[in-house]
């Protein structure tokens, strides 16, 4: 079923990066290392975007997620630095939560496998040829085209403005 070729090797490496980073976030004892693990995971996701012929999103992922979001988190870790060594790693009722999460995982499997599993309705569907996937130009046009996504685009810009103003208001020390 799985052939060894450049793509599958790349996928395997990136999957290990993504999940390993994720595990690192969930299990580590040190906040700062957690932030580094998060970056590893985000980087893995960016690589997978490239494999899925979405190079533009991969670039956005690196710029925004790693360049801005992860760095901002690192700042927060440093600003609250007395907390970086966590005495207690997990909540106390671990067992119950693990059971709940596993249950959730099986729900997810039940949701995904009938469609994309080996016997699923979509498993054999041939993927669309890579050339069909959007160019950066198409994405750009779609964002400002009235028949496509201009409305959420404008709303998102307002949201960013309000979030920025609000973040400043609640985080700054009292003036006056």
């Amino acid at each position, binding site marked *: 079923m799985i*052939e060894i070729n450049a793509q599958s090797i790349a*996928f395997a490496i990136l999957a290990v990066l*993504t*999940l390993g980073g*994720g*595990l690192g976030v*969930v299990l580590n004892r040190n*906040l700062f290392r957690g932030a580094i693990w*998060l970056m590893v*995971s*985000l980087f893995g*996701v960016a690589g*997978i*975007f490239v*494999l*899925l012929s*979405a190079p*533009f*999103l991969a670039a*956005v*992922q690196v710029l*925004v*997620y790693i360049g*801005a*979001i992860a760095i*901002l*988190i690192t700042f*927060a870790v440093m*600003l*609250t630095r007395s*907390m970086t060594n966590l005495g207690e*790693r*997990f*909540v106390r009722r*671990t067992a119950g*939560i*693990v059971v*709940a*999460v596993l249950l*959730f*995982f099986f729900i997810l499997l039940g949701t*995904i496998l009938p469609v*994309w599993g080996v016997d699923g309705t979509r498993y054999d*569907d041939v*993927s*669309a040829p890579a050339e*069909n*996937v*959007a160019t950066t130009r198409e*994405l750009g046009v*779609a964002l400002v085209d009235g028949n496509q*996504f201009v409305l959420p*685009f404008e709303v*998102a810009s307002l*949201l*960013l403005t309000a*979030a*920025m103003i609000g*973040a400043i208001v609640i*985080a700054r020390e009292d003036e006056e």
Partner: protein
Amino acid sequence: MEVSIASYIMLSAVLFILGAMGVLLRRNAILVFMSVELMLNAANLALVAFARHWGQTDGHLFVFFVITVAAAEVAVGLALIVAIFRTKKSINIDDLHELQG
């Protein structure tokens, strides 16, 4: 043969579960927050895989919006963390017990 879309979807499901575990298991606000980012990334991964499957751009645009919203969310979240640290000197969720009843 190419790596099937199903593999990508399974990868994203596992990443999503990891994120959900982090949210439910960890008590540190920043770590919970990082776990939420993992969940969002899992959704993005699935969206891009689906977009590849259907050969259209909607999924990519969805991801674009998710990343934008995540940036806004992160700014607000970190401002909250800083604000709460200033008053409490702790960002442990268990120490948030001013409100109880």
